């Protein structure tokens, strides 16, 4: 049975006893997109993913995929694969045993495909998975999820903690699968850099709430860093008078660095009128885009993004 794979999250609230972990979340994951969910620890990413996967039941609100509710919907879950942050394998199982386990439950599971992928990744099929490294376990889980031929894939911090080689292998597997099957995927991560390469769009969660959602391409083009140098002395006002919308402004001598929300062509056209000595537009990293976007919305995320950067560093050290 095939249907729309659009994931609609409407007014989702989730409480654990007295703690409200998700608060009135609403957004949509378009069909066929690779959607990133980013946020610090405790933001609610894993909880939200589990609600989408039908593992948790929301306190309020509704999650639908293709218009159907997920919770206890076995037909829908046949088309859904979930790889959690903490992986589970049957006690004492090897990869073949897990293939057997998945084949028994998923209609569309292709054992041949699972074996083929295992061979590609050179994973031993008859060795106990408990003896695998973290990266190998994640590869196992990824193989099993892909071999189930899902239309919807949910990954919870799948890449975090992996060494660059393992990360690359897993990422390749996933993107090939997603693209070939035109699946909808939701990936959570601490790392904006990780999601930047993989995702079409992103949502930023903080303390259970949705702070921001946007296409990555829009994000990247929504802000520009402009470096301009003029022969004459000038002030911020000079630049503003050209009609440019300035988000951030810093000046040293006759060189100014501007973050503007106008498009490249417009900015260049407006600044050209000032006959600049130097006029360069520079790309912003996703982190920088986020920072400025949040500031626009009244959030100060310097500390938080620092935390994200720290956790990325720590994870990479652990993987090495």
């Amino acid at each position, binding site marked *: 049975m095939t249907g729309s794979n659009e994931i609609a999250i409407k007014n989702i609230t989730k409480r*654990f*006893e007295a703690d409200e972990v998700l608060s009135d979340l609403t957004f949509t994951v378009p069909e066929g997109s690779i959607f990133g969910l980013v946020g610090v620890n405790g933001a609610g990413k894993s909880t939200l993913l*589990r609600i989408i*996967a*039908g*593992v*948790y*039941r929301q306190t309020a609100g509704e999650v639908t995929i293709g218009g159907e509710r997920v919770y*206890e919907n*076995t*037909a*829908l*879950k*046949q088309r*859904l694969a*979930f790889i*959690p942050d*903490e*992986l*589970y394998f*049957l006690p004492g199982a090897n990869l*073949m045993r897990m*293939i*057997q*386990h998945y*084949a*028994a*439950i*998923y*209609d569309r*599971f292709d*054992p*041949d495909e699972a*074996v083929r992928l295992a*061979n590609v990744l*050179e*994973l*031993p*099929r*008859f060795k106990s998975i408990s003896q695998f490294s973290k990266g190998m376990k994640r590869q196992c889980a990824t193989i099993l999820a892909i071999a189930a031929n899902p239309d919807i894939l949910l990954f919870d911090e799948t890449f975090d903690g992996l060494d660059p080689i393992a990360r690359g292998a897993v990422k390749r597997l996933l993107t090939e699968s997603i693209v070939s099957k035109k699946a909808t995927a939701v990936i959570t991560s601490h790392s904006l850099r990780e999601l930047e390469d993989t995702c079409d769009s992103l949502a930023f969660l903080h303390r259970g709430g949705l702070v921001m959602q946007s296409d990555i391409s829009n994000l990247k083009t929504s802000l520009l860093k402009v470096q301009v140098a003029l022969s004459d002395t000038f002030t911020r006002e000079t630049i503003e008078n050209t009609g440019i919308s300035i988000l951030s402004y810093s000046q040293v001598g006759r060189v100014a660095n501007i973050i503007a929300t106008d498009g490249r062509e417009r900015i260049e056209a407006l600044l050209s009128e000032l006959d600049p000595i130097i006029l360069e537009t520079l790309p912003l990293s996703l982190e920088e885009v986020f920072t400025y976007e949040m500031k626009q919305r009244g959030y100060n995320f310097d500390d938080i993004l620092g935390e994200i950067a720290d956790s990325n560093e720590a994870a990479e050290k652990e993987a090495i």
Partner: protein
Amino acid sequence: MSKDKLTAQTEKTLLAAKKFSPSNKSFFSKGIYFEGLRQGKVVGFIYAGIMALLSIVIVFGSAVVQVLSEDLMLTSLSPEDGLGIVTYMSFFLIIPALMFLLFHFLSTRKGSDHFYSLPVTRSAILVSYTLSAFTWVVIGLLVFLLPILAINIFAVGSVYLAGWLALMASVIVACMLTAAAMLIAVSVASNLFGQVAVTLLVLFLPRVLITFGYFLAAGYTEILFPLYNSSGFLNPSTNILTGIVFAPFGLGVFTIMPRLSSVLYTIGLSAVYFAIALVLFRRRPSEAAEEPASSGLAQNIISALVAFVVALIPIVLLIELATEKRNHGSYDVGFIIAIAALYGLSLIVFFAYRAISAKSLSAVRRPWSGLAIFLALNIAFLGIWSLAVSATYGFNPTAQSITYFKADIGRTVNQAFGIQSNQYAEYLLSQYEIEDEVIDEQIVTALRRNVQDSKEGTIYENPQNSNGLQVTMKIGARTVNRKVLFSDEEYAIIIDRLKNNHPKILELARSFPEPEEASHIQSNIITNEKEVLELARSLFAELQEQGRSSSSSVNSVYVEPLDSLWLTIPLNGMTYWMSDLFINETTPKTAELLLSYLEKRNPGSLDELILKLEASKYGRMAMYPIIAGRDNELTQHMEKYGTDWITAELGTYYESRDYEYLSSDYMTSELALELARENWGRVPELGKSILSVNYEADGKNVVLLFGLDENGAAFRKYKQAVLEWREQEAQQRIDVEYGYYG
């Protein structure tokens, strides 16, 4: 990483995986079911292996022995031997092991998340895994049952098939209840400690509360039936599992043939528990894994219940205190101290459970909701007890309202008719519905007095309350049980009415069962199953012809019978024994039948007997006279000092026993010679002394009976020796020593 080859095994696995077509139904998943079988296979195979071993050792071994010894008793293969091990293993060990193994995923966050993410409903996980566990239990039981069925099918012996099948059925029913309780446990508690605690609470606490409550109410009022005799829902054996577990404490029954009502009740209770488990399991949040319970409320309830189990002890003391106050007007202060101390203990248990289940001392904080529940439980129990006592006292029927009554009138009937009924007859009498307004009047009068005396604490002090009966009254749609204490006058009226107005009662008092109803029937000297059945049939018919209700040796000329039978009969889930069914000259037809059976195996002569004994590994022959005439000195002597054995020593084939007080060599030689010359082939004359010859050959014990010549020299010498010895022993202490001398 090294590449490994695609082995034939891998291909097989893949093929099997591909062929599989998972079900998408809500309550069952073939995939999860087969997963459960795979996961449980180690435990399942070990269990099947142990059951196979048990069946070989217990069942097959005894079957081989019985087949080789020719005569197979009706009960040669009965479940009693394997009962304990099979029963206890199956539901105390195997089903919990399998259930905890299969549902262990609920105890970890990642396990829980994994299974709840699968395209299987929670109901299907619960049902399918439970069926997997049961499949292994059934496999094990079938392995155990196969040799029994084979023996029966191929007719190489006799088996009590109904008993074995009943045992298997009751084991499965007990396993169902255990599994259902465990499902509730895994739905509300998330670690092994909590799950074990909740399982035990669900399985036993309700019945403990009912039993305790009834026990306390019966003890306080003293007019309710004893617990073991209570009927229906109140009896612990109504629940097969608690019946078995409570049996060692005298509150239940361990029977291989439970009542149908018990089986149905236990199945029904399992279904209720299963339904509750289904609801709880579906509601159980995945995030509850690794928490002590599925919610704060669940944890409070569980910890309160655990503490309440301990609190039952001070509750008993509280009621004891109330009884003391009622009966004596005061009570010992020690009660108060003990009650306070025990409640303190229950509070310690409350906090300890919370700390251990949460693996953290901080869990003892915020206990107020749990304590409130604990308090409410105590108040509720005492409140219900109080209501039960009030209801007991409040039952005040009129004679006209009693449609009929039943009572344990066996003793009463025996007194009325001067007879001695057998147990079977007494059971029939206890079930007889009596309609008699005069007796009804005695019942209500006595009951009214008993209630008043009980309220004042003087029920046993009132001299009017001297004859007790357990009475079951039918009043409209209700059936009410009361222990009623009658005065001598009231009791005499009852006896008179039963004797003169209910002819059916005498008929019942003289009833005997059909021997085929017995699950076990045995004779002292006949080992052939068919012959024993015929003896029983003949004996019962003969006794009924004579208008006798039992067969005893009281009216016989013999102190000991020629033979005696005993039977066990399952009736309505209980087992009744009939013993001391004597065959003697007062039952001449049966005695003749017995003699004809003995004559069949009688070697034609003493020489032939000697040859038989020669062929045996060892031959030992014993003779003793069964003396006729109760009133003579000889039988009085034998009655007083026990049966006197004389062994005959004939050549080197026999062992003999020497008695220091009797010149046995001389005397027994005389008897043996007489046996050879005169008594061999002499049919015993019933009512006259008989010579019993007892020997062992081919592993069987054989008894022969010969007519003893009371005027013969041997017997006269025997008599003389015994009487002389009687004089000697008057002056000295006798130590009888039984020894064997080669």
